[in-house]
Every structure is written in structure tokens, then in C-alpha cells.
């Protein structure tokens, strides 16, 4: 597992508001280059909103998001910056095409040829034999592995994972976690993982934070976060005693 380096993302006073309701209010947050950062929290805590902001899919209502010390916000972000960051969502959204075509899609957008990358990544996610199969006819676990392969094949600098293994069986959970770990260790890809699965955060992350009602309650090294949380709400959440 890579230890975190310099900040790749820096959020300062970032607020997001939907229909007059504040759904995210982060005073300060740094994502370090090369780390696996897990953000845990219950549903509705603002985890997915945060990922959409980090992927430049929307702009914050107020505050600043810096990517490698450059201001970056929503659709106005330069394409070459946007293309360094990608997401895998909880529900894999695949195109009506073969597994191969889905995985190659990001390369096609960039005008790149597969160069064996698609085949290699399909091997990694264990889907080489299904390369020609229609992607939408796969099982949930297989579809999520296609979505992960599609994100990894473009070699992102930052990989954002939104509950990537929710509703998957233990085999697929284990496989996806191994791939995430290998990607982080092998290529130094920064990973931001949001999940309500504290065990997964514990297994994967260098640092873990708790998001509650849109606010970052606590963020610390994963071991300290779980063994000696500073905030009683963190202690309640990780022990499963929090009622929300």
C-alpha cells in the first residue's frame, strides 16, 4: 500500500447545495497523491456528492477545489485535467455493446488504440473469456468488474470509487479489492473510496474519514481512526452503534 504524498486535491470551504438544502459542507480536506482515502458514512452523508465534485461533474455552490494546486471546478475544468480523474459508480452504467467495447470506450474517447491494454485489463479482472459478450447481460459482479476495467484501462491518476462493491458477493468483493490494491501499489494511483462498509475501509485505506450530514467529522490514519477515534460519533459509527 502506498503511503500518501503531496496533496493532489485540496478542498477549501466547499459547500454544495441542492434545491436550497446544503448537502455538503467541507471546511478543509486534502487528498494525498498516491494514497487510498476512504470516506465512510451513512446514506445521505454527502459521499457521492463529494465524488462528483472531485470528478468535476459539478461545481460547488461555494468554496475552492484545487487539483495539483490549480483551481478546478465542474465542466470548466480543462479536458486534460478532467481526463486524469475517473469514477466507478455503485451501479455500473454500461453501454449497449460488448464487454470489450465498453472497456475500450475511454481509450476511444482519447483517440488511443487498445495496444493490448484492453486484453490485459480483462485478464486482470477475470473477464477475458467474456470479451465478446454483451455487457448488459452479465451478472452484477461481472458488470462492476467491467466498469472497473473501463476506468483502469485509461490509467487515471485519481480513481474515485462510489460504493464499488455494494450488493456484490464475497468473491467479487475480494477480487475488486485486490485489483484496487494492486492498482494503487503498482501505478501509484490515488484512490478515493466512499463506502458505508467500515470493514472495507479498514482493509483498504491508508486514511479514513467520517462524513456525517455533509460534514467531515474526523479524518485520520486508518489504524488510529478505528482503534482510537477522537470523536464519539466516529466511535459510534465504526462500532455499529450509531443510529441514523
Amino acid at each position, binding site marked *: 500500500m502506498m503511503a500518501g504524498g503531496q496533496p493532489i486535491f485540496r478542498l477549501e470551504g466547499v459547500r454544495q447545495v441542492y434545491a436550497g438544502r446544503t448537502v455538503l459542507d467541507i471546511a478543509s480536506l486534502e487528498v494525498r497523491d498516491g494514497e487510498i482515502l476512504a470516506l465512510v458514512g451513512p446514506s445521505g452523508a454527502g459521499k457521492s456528492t463529494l465524488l*462528483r465534485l472531485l*470528478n468535476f*461533474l459539478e461545481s460547488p455552490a461555494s468554496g475552492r477545489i484545487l487539483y495539483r494546486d490549480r483551481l478546478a471546478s465542474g465542466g470548466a475544468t480543462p*479536458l486534460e485535467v*478532467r*481526463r486524469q480523474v*475517473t*469514477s466507478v*459508480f455503485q*451501479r455500473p*452504467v454500461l*453501454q*449497449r455493446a460488448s464487454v470489450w467495447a465498453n472497456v475500450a*470506450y*475511454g481509450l476511444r*474517447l*482519447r483517440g488511443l488504440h487498445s495496444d493490448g491494454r484492453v486484453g490485459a485489463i480483462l485478464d486482470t479482472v477475470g473477464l477475458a473469456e467474456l470479451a465478446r459478450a454483451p455487457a448488459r447481460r452479465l451478472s452484477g459482479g461481472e458488470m462492476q468488474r467491467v466498469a472497473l476495467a*473501463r*476506468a483502469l484501462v*485509461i490509467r487515471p491518476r485519481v480513481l*474515485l470509487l462510489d460504493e464499488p462493491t455494494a450488493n456484490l458477493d464475497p468473491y467479487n468483493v475480494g477480487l475488486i479489492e485486490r485489483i484496487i490494491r494492486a492498482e494503487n501499489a503498482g501505478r501509484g494511483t490515488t484512490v478515493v473510496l466512499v463506502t458505508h462498509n467500515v470493514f472495507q475501509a479498514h482493509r483498504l485505506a491508508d486514511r479514513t474519514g467520517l462524513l456525517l450530514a455533509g460534514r467531515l467529522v474526523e479524518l485520520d490514519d486508518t489504524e488510529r481512526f478505528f482503534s482510537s477515534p477522537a470523536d464519539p460519533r466516529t466511535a459510534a459509527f465504526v462500532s455499529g452503534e450509531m443510529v441514523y
Partner: protein
Amino acid sequence: MHDILRGLLDAARLLAAGSRELWGIIALSLRVTGTSLLLCTLIGVPVGAALGLSRLRSRGLVTALLYTGMGLPPVVVGLFVYLLLSRSGPLGALGWLFTPRAMIMAQTIIAFPLVTGLTLTAVRGVDPAFRQQVRALGATRVQEIWALLEEARLGVVAAVVAAFGSIISEVGAVMLVGGNIEGRTRVLTTAIVLDTRQGEFVSALALGVILLLLAFLANLVLLRLQGKQ
């Protein structure tokens, strides 16, 4: 019943004989409808996609106008184009009245709301998460629209099929602006009207069968395109 059977037989006979006049009518019908369809597809599909993606406040009004346009009476469109292209009209200098260009113009206006409105509906029907995922993978705006159209292609092809059906069978507008001039602006529908008026029912039926056959073949091609993708 007897006349219908005779019409079918005559249609086969007419096609087999391949008279120059008949082939001319068929060719003009296909040229006018094909060009109109191409034009309204080239304009209507991107406009429909852009409207489907836009968050403009006036989007509802534009949609209501388009849906109203889908029900435009062709003869009213014909009258409008006639007035535009008549010698004293604003586009009279073009000299298009009673030419295939006027017919293409009228048919394009008739088909445009259909293609645009149905494309808009198809694009709006795409899962919003799909659009987000495409952007998250690094698509430009144009690539995003293209991906959405690919995703909504069943609806988009259906829009083109519906537009084709509405204009290949259209008679009021092409009659008004084309004038049904033999060898110049006579198409299958106007030829059917003329034959019927002259009491040539069997010939009219034969032309009707040919029209149906053409529509069927064109739809087969379009549906094959839909299936292939």
C-alpha cells in the same frame, strides 16, 4: 375486391414492364422524400439531442411547440411554403415553386418536428447516470452527445422511421407546391390522386401498392439499421 386483386396484378405488371414514366415517378418520389429525410435528420437529430440535454427554462415551451408541430396539417405547410415561394412571396426570387425543391422544402418542414421531438424524447429517456458516467470517463461535450445518441438510437431510428412514413405518404403539400406536373413534379401520391380523379382506379391501386412496397422496403432498411446497432 376484384379491383384490388386487379390492382395488385397491375402493379406487378407495371413494375415488370418498367415504363419510363413509372420509373420516373418512383425515382422522383424517392429523391424528394430521401432528400427531405436526410435534411431533417441532419438538422433535427442534433437539435433534438441538444434540447434533450439543455436545462433552458423555455425547454417546456419549445417541447410543447415541437409536439404541436408533429400534428401540423401537411396542406397548411404546403400553403405556407406556397406563399413563401410564390412570385410575390419573400422567397419568390428563388424560383422554386412547382419544382422538386419546393416539395423537398415542404416535406422537410413537415418531418422536422417529428424527428426533433421524438429524438428529444429518446434522449431524455436515457438514464441520467449514463451521461454522468460518460463525462466521468473524459468525454468532450460532442462525444457526450454522440454517446447519448448511440444510447438512444432505438428512439432516434424510430423518429426517422416515423418521419419517413409521414412524408412518403404525404400528398397535400407536394400537390400544392409541386403542382403534379408530368415528368417534373409528379410523385406516387399525386399520381394516385390524378388517376383516381380520372377514374383510373386500377392504375391508382397499382401505384398505391408500389408506394406501400417502397415504404415497406425503406422501413425494413431502417429497422435493420436499428437492429444492427
